[in-house]
């Protein structure tokens, strides 16, 4: 059963703030993530499935999966002084990989890869109490050629069907976005107007339109990570988004969004 759907920024400056990052802005994003945490408490999920793009941490050039599922007992990662160890909902993760493959998606699975900060920065702030087991779902965003937005959307649609047919209450989170260009000469000039137009589209319940954008467009707009959102949109369909916050910093469009789902 799919009970909740959210998108949450994962900028590391939200977790470890350098002096160059506006503290009030960071706290406003924290407040929006706090709303997600409260919503997750209300929704009582048995598991949290989180779609994120690895920042060349779990997967280097020895193997570059387009789509991957972490299937194991737990997963771990580090960032600065932070040490994360999170339980995986193994039956659900295994069902996702088995049924995903049955449906024609050639998923890679791992029982050992490191967990990237794209997974644990959002969870650091939104994990309800007591902590729920997670299902980490990877979409390649940083190492071209990445999966096309249409493929991400199709995978999300299949994922949604798989999750809806399960007995567990599952909340789905897309990690990442919006516009930013780390490591390039565009770092200080993201495309905030593009983000705002996109959020309007999502508020109107036209998320499926995103399945038609091209990879080139996402790269040009600093939105390669939107593949995680597009995956989620495949799962939730044309539900109207509620934007909790959009906070553009000098280098990053930080958004926190919910797609309120009809649940019995």
């Amino acid at each position, binding site marked *: 059963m799919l009970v909740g759907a959210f998108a949450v920024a994962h900028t590391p400056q939200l977790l*470890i703030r350098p002096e160059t990052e506006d503290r009030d802005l960071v706290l406003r994003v924290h407040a929006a993530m706090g709303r997600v945490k409260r919503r997750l408490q209300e929704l009582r999920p048995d598991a949290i499935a989180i779609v994120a793009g690895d920042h060349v941490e779990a997967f280097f050039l020895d193997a570059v999966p387009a789509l991957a599922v972490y299937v194991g007992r737990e997963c771990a990662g580090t960032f600065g002084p932070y040490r994360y160890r999170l339980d995986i909902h193994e039956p659900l993760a295994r069902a996702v990989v088995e049924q995903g493959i049955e449906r024609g998606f050639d998923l890679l699975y791992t029982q050992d890869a490191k967990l990237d900060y794209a997974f644990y920065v959002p969870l650091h702030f939104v994990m309800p109490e007591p902590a729920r087991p997670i299902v980490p779902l990877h979409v390649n965003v*940083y190492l071209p050629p990445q999966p096309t937005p249409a493929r991400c959307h199709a995978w999300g649609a299949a994922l949604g069907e798989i999750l809806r047919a399960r007995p567990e209450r599952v909340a789905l989170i897309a990690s990442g976005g919006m516009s930013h260009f*780390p490591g390039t000469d565009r770092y200080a000039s993201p495309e905030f107007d593009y983000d705002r137009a996109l959020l309007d589209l999502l508020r109107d319940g036209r998320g499926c339109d995103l399945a038609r954008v091209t990879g080139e467009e996402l790269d040009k707009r600093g939105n390669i990570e939107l593949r995680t959102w597009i995956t989620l949109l495949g799962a939730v369909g044309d539900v109207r988004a509620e934007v909790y916050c959009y906070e553009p910093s000098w280098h990053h469009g930080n958004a926190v969004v919910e797609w309120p789902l009809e649940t019995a």
Partner: protein
Amino acid sequence: MSEGAHYRFPPSEAYPLNRCLYALKSDPAFIERFLADPVAATLEMGLTEGERADLRRMDRDALVARGAHPYLVFMAGLRLKIAAEPGALEYF
């Protein structure tokens, strides 16, 4: 993806360079070795003299022109900067 993209296919000739940047980003033991003896650490990674010179200066444009992944350059540089001058960081 066009050649003008911000993030491009990593050419195989840049593999040692990208592997070195990956280690600087994600391997604390390698960062220690690099800080103690950058020449030995980068030779261990099989970098050319030109790559080593660009890395020493953390010359992003030159490294990216050699096929380094921009994100790896960015995070490797950040890790080295934090190691050199921890500065005021607020942990949440």
